[in-house]
């Protein structure tokens, strides 16, 4: 075999290997979804969604976990959105030159994005549970997750703001608008879909977080619904974890069914984000 034919053979073989590697991930994903659907789909019913957890797997449901997840998501969004956008706006619109402080904040945000989530749990335990005595409440959980997802929101806010052409700002300044008027009335409305997309993706990460909430002491068994932000809570991932750790087969089925609910919620959040991104790309043209 001559050199050229050999090289072509190697190339073809390598292409197949690389394609196979790409397909491994896809096969894994489909197996995972199929396995969970197979295990849990039959268990989903109205009573599963509206019952409290129980010692008997066939009677148990996810009501308290589902309500807890909705509470936590709502509170986290309320805290994280304004703070994250504010920080992004400051770093992108209010700092002309890169001084020491903004450099420091930037490096810091990049590093915070890489801190394992369980460390945020220890932070929440030290600051919110102990120092501020908020106990293992919804408020503690939401504040902890807020700190966890802030770097993601800040980074995506900055990306969205960067995409707004500079001429828009200059036109606004030329008409005598102040910096905040320019930011609030011109730049933010245009960047909003991008910012919302980033925020929703951050929330879809928060909805699946388990470790930091376990670390701050969220309960694994709750048979009542929280009435205020100072009440204890549980969330879907913790309920799933609790059921997975039990030896009885019935609880594994419950876990699979709860996973389906969790994945559907995550999917809904992601679809909203994709829709917004799509709309954003279409509508605005300069």
């Amino acid at each position, binding site marked *: 075999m001559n050199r050229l034919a050999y090289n072509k053979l190697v190339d073809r073989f390598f292409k197949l290997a690389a394609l196979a*590697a790409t397909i491994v*991930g*896809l096969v894994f994903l489909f197996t995972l979804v199929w396995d969970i659907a197979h295990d849990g789909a039959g268990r989903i019913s109205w009573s599963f969604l509206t019952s409290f957890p129980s010692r008997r797997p066939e009677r148990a449901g996810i009501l308290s976990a589902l309500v807890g997840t909705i509470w936590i998501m709502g509170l986290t969004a309320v805290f994280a959105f304004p703070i994250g956008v504010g920080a992004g*706006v400051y770093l992108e619109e209010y700092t002309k030159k890169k001084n020491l402080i903004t450099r420091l904040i930037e490096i810091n945000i990049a590093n915070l994005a890489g801190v394992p989530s*369980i460390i945020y749990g220890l932070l929440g335990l030290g600051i919110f549970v102990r120092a501020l005595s908020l106990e293992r409440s919804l408020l503690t959980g939401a504040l902890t997750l807020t700190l966890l997802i802030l770097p993601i929101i800040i980074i995506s806010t900055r990306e969205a703001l960067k995409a707004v052409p500079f001429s828009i700002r200059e036109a606004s300044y030329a008409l005598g608008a102040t910096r905040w008027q320019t930011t609030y009335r011109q730049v933010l409305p245009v960047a909003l879909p991008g910012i919302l997309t980033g925020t929703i993706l951050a929330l879809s990460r928060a909805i699946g977080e388990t470790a930091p909430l376990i*670390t701050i002491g969220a309960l694994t068994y709750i048979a009542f619904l929280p009435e205020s932000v100072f009440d204890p809570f549980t969330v879907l991932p913790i309920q799933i*974890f609790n059921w*997975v750790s039990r030896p009885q087969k019935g609880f594994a089925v419950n876990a699979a069914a709860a996973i389906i609910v969790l994945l559907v919620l*995550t999917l809904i959040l992601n679809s909203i984000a994709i829709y917004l991104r799509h709309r954003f790309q279409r509508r605005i043209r300069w």
Partner: protein
Amino acid sequence: MKSFLDRRSRQRIFERGIHAALLLCASLSIFTTIGIILALFFETFDFFKEVSIIEFLTDTQWTPLFVDKHFGILSLVAGTFIVSLIAMCVAIPLGILCAIYLSEYSSPRFREVVKPILEVLAGIPTVVYGYFALLFVTPLLKSFIPGLSGFNALSPGIVMGIMILPMVSSMSEDAMHAVPSSLREGAYALGATRFQVATKVVVPAALSGIMSSFVLAVSRAVGETMIVTIAAGQQPRFSLNPLVPIETITAYIVQVSLGDTPAGTIEHKTIFAAGMTLFIFTLALNLISNWLKERFREEYR
């Protein structure tokens, strides 16, 4: 007084207020870092008043919850190490092959369809992977490896590797994408095949970007919690045997958090000492990864 209330002054005060509020939002990230360091430091400091740092770093047993207490972090580090190593053995070869395929071989349409699907893998909650590792992958592996325990490092390691795969492939692909196409064209003009272009031109040129993705992937694996908590067991063990139950640093923190260990006891302080160890590891890895990324960016400015 009237001049104070005129429109421009009011506006100026309002602008200043906004500026201060925004600065406060941005500096919250600094406070978060300080908070993390303080929260970990105080309890860790207390911990080392009772346990010598030598014992912590050299003892090979970790039994703070038993009567005969040993505080050797090495057994948790060994557990973390073996799971991360297995995850990397899965994620690095698959990730780099995947990145090469998507960047150098595939049609744009194939990439547009496959890339988002792969990224779904990174968005699935980790507790779901834990379920899958324990109840699907472990039983499957048991049919090949008879000596495998119900809890082991192998199964969560493999699953974690697949979870990290999109991160490695996506970041490596970005790095390869940033390599100027003139380099590729030069090689093609000399008669190189795609394989030769990919392995001899593109990968070496994008190397620091690719390495940066590997290091970040290691950091993610070291800090990953739920998969190992569910599927790897709770037996700290100073061994690198992937077939037996082990415990990672993260799984230990969860184990103690779930129990009713009262705050202030030495048992409870161990989670902060373990957390500090984890924080130092991941911080070092993230800094190395960022450094590599910056270096790569400078090469192709």
